[in-house]
């Protein structure tokens, strides 16, 4: 599908991804509002469609205790975006919202409030959790069967839209939603904003997740790049068509990281340096421990993988939710042979496993790769994941954005004011 001349969409994810990238001395405190302001404003300077906040609703645990090695903790997404609405003017503001442990009325009201403060720049990234572990912090615990999580999410979105649409020009109307998950009714009094319903972002990859995206999402935040990304995009577009929605109503935006340099070699060095920050020696050992099911702290993180097999039956209180012995054994075997083949130590292997497919090169090369990928139909744009905040997008915005603009593959100014405008969608009433 030729998309020559089509402008790509860019977004920014605030990095909070359980990596050891906090060791970068430029990394700011992520309970400091200034860290959010800095990154959001840079993304806005770069004319990005939206600024996205992830949600990790419970601290990661390792061996039965809170994990110490990766970034942990977060601010409430809608609350901090409500504050950011004051210090930004155009960029979209998108919280991740968990449909499992929230009530539609509360979320719809908070989002509509954000939409009001920001003059129509809100959106929401709808995610689902079904696990009882997360549920231990909520009234109903881990009540939702895994298979039902998308049903609940779909109904959640439907209920929220029913509430937003209940508002007439002269004030609140009456809404009612009757379904297996929710039976609610009343008046929805938060005034409507200029974009109608906030756009929906969705990130699931399963069969159910893809169907959900095709039916409900305005943006699909995917994790596929390269050929897998093309296949994913084609799949989503065919599902979308089956749902009777136009291809341009759903923007496919994979998450990507990047590393820049004055030369391609310098960029590769920077990519490696960023990975070395992200994967600390301690984090690499923890990563392996989750497969071996045993303490590996005596191993040299830069040395070879353990030559022993993973523990067959590790104590479940220390290793809750660990995979079956066969799976772990097969994985260990695969890693050992790969590491041996390529001469990789523990840390280098983990860097390889977690590195993904970043765009690496000079600003011109990265801009060309991004442009080519979008024009070949692999995606409609990208959600950029900087290695740190607040400054992690500075170089991209300063050096890559102009290259994109020069190629005619990116906007040179915001032409609209709402998030729907930036996404190129009509107001959805």
């Amino acid at each position: 599908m030729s998309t020559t001349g089509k402008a790509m969409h860019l977004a920014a994810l605030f990095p909070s991804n359980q990596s050891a990238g906090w060791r970068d001395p430029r990394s700011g405190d992520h309970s400091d509002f200034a860290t959010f302001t800095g990154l959001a404003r840079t993304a806005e300077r770069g004319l990005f469609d939206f600024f996205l906040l992830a949600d990790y609703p419970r601290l990661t645990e390792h061996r039965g205790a809170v994990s110490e090695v990766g970034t942990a903790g977060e601010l409430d997404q809608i609350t901090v975006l409500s504050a950011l609405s004051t210090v930004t003017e155009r960029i979209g503001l998108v919280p991740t919202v968990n449909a499992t442990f929230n009530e539609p009325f509360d979320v719809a009201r908070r989002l509509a409030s954000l939409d009001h403060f920001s003059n129509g720049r809100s959106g929401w990234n709808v995610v689902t959790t079904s696990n009882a572990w997360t549920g231990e912090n909520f009234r109903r615990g881990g009540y939702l069967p895994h298979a039902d999580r998308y049903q609940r999410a779909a109904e959640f979105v439907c209920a929220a839209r029913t509430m937003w649409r209940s508002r007439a020009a002269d004030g609140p109307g009456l809404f009612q939603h009757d379904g297996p998950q929710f039976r609610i009714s009343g008046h929805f009094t938060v005034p409507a904003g200029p974009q109608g319903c906030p756009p929906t972002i969705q990130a699931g990859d399963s069969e159910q997740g893809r169907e959900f995206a095709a039916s409900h999402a305005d943006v699909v935040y995917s994790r596929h790049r390269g050929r897998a990304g093309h296949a994913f995009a084609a799949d989503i577009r065919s599902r979308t068509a089956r749902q009777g929605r136009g291809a341009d109503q759903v923007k496919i935006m994979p998450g990507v990281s990047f590393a820049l340099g004055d030369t391609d070699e310098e960029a590769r060095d920077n990519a490696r340096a960023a990975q070395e920050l992200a994967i600390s020696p301690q984090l690499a050992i923890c990563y392996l421990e989750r497969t071996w099911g045993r303490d590996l702290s005596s191993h040299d993180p830069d040395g070879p993988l353990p030559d022993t097999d993973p523990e067959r039956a590790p104590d479940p209180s220390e290793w809750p939710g660990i995979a079956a012995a066969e799976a772990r054994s097969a994985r260990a075997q695969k890693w050992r042979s790969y590491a041996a083949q390529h001469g990789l130590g523990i840390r280098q292997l983990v860097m390889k496993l977690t590195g993904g497919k970043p765009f690496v090169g000079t600003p011109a090369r990265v801009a060309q790769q991004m442009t080519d990928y979008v024009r070949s139909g692999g995606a409609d744009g990208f959600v950029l994941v900087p290695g740190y905040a607040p400054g992690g997008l500075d170089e991209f915005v300063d050096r890559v954005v102009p290259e994109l603009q020069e190629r005619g593959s990116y906007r040179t100014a915001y032409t609209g004011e709402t998030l729907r405008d930036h996404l190129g969608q009509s107001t959805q009433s």
Partner: protein
Amino acid sequence: MNHVFLGVEIGEPESARPAARPGPAASDCARAAKLAERGSLAFVTLGEVLTSRSDSAPGRQPLCQSRLNPVATLAHVAPQTTSIGLVATATVSYLEPFHVSKALATLDHVSSGRAGWCVQVSRSAEEAQLFGDRSARDLPSRYEEAVEFVEVVSRLWDSWEDGAEIRDAATGRFLDRARIRAVNHQGRYFQVKGPGIVPRPPQGHPVTAVRITSDEDLPLAARADMVFGRLERIAGTRPRLRGETRIIADLFVDCRGLPAGQWAWEAGGAAQIGDVRAFADFLEARARTGLVDGFRLVFADVTTELSRFVDEAVPELRTRRLVSPWGPGCRSFRERLGLPHTAPNSLVP
């Protein structure tokens, strides 16, 4: 000490708003908060009513309301202000303590230690319908639930010690897990394991406020840092509260239509009119009784009347040293209220 704590409600009374006109816009709230700050007020409050209609029983008319979510609205206001306390009402009856704890901790972070919340219990079947709550629980159990809710919220704030985030690059430790604790709450209404997910707020605990309209509110009020209420209702409550709790009387002001220089106010059941000196005399006299520690101004039309208050009444109050601006050493809203600048951590042995 003659000093009084002055605050202002920046929502609007339901009665004041013509039906067709929408509720206070966020920009109105921001403008009011900035004005209040300029007038050396210690805090703003923002009430909430979840539906467009309230139950009709007398005395239950909500004081003021925002059609916008109050925590989100005050988070929007926070970067536009630097010193004023921000007290958001939260109706706790259908929400998760985990979410509310997280949102308030965040308000405290983005405002650098100026967050507060007014705990509200839902009394309305109509509100229950918004959440699909068909339990038809009675009011006493709603109040009991609210007391437990506040307890859980506080413990979640305490689940992170100050300085749990150590960022020790040498050892690769972002967190010190010894400074993070599970909450392990097993109660009648909630089971919450914890720990929370937000680093400990600057104040430890955002200021907790309760509005007293009846004796049913007293168990909640006994755990509060601040109570609001009609003067005649709360003037006698000090013996039933903690020693440090700030008692703040609602002061209703409606100067619409009055000639310049004239003030009309009501507190303690008696409406009064006078010039600005009489107004200041009244405040000073009430404060001197020691029965109240301050006042929350409730204007019939905050948009026009607060401005007049700041221009005309505040200079008089400043002259009498009844109010003073946020001092350079003041580190948080708690400290502004004369409390220790952070709350102690109940989970630290």
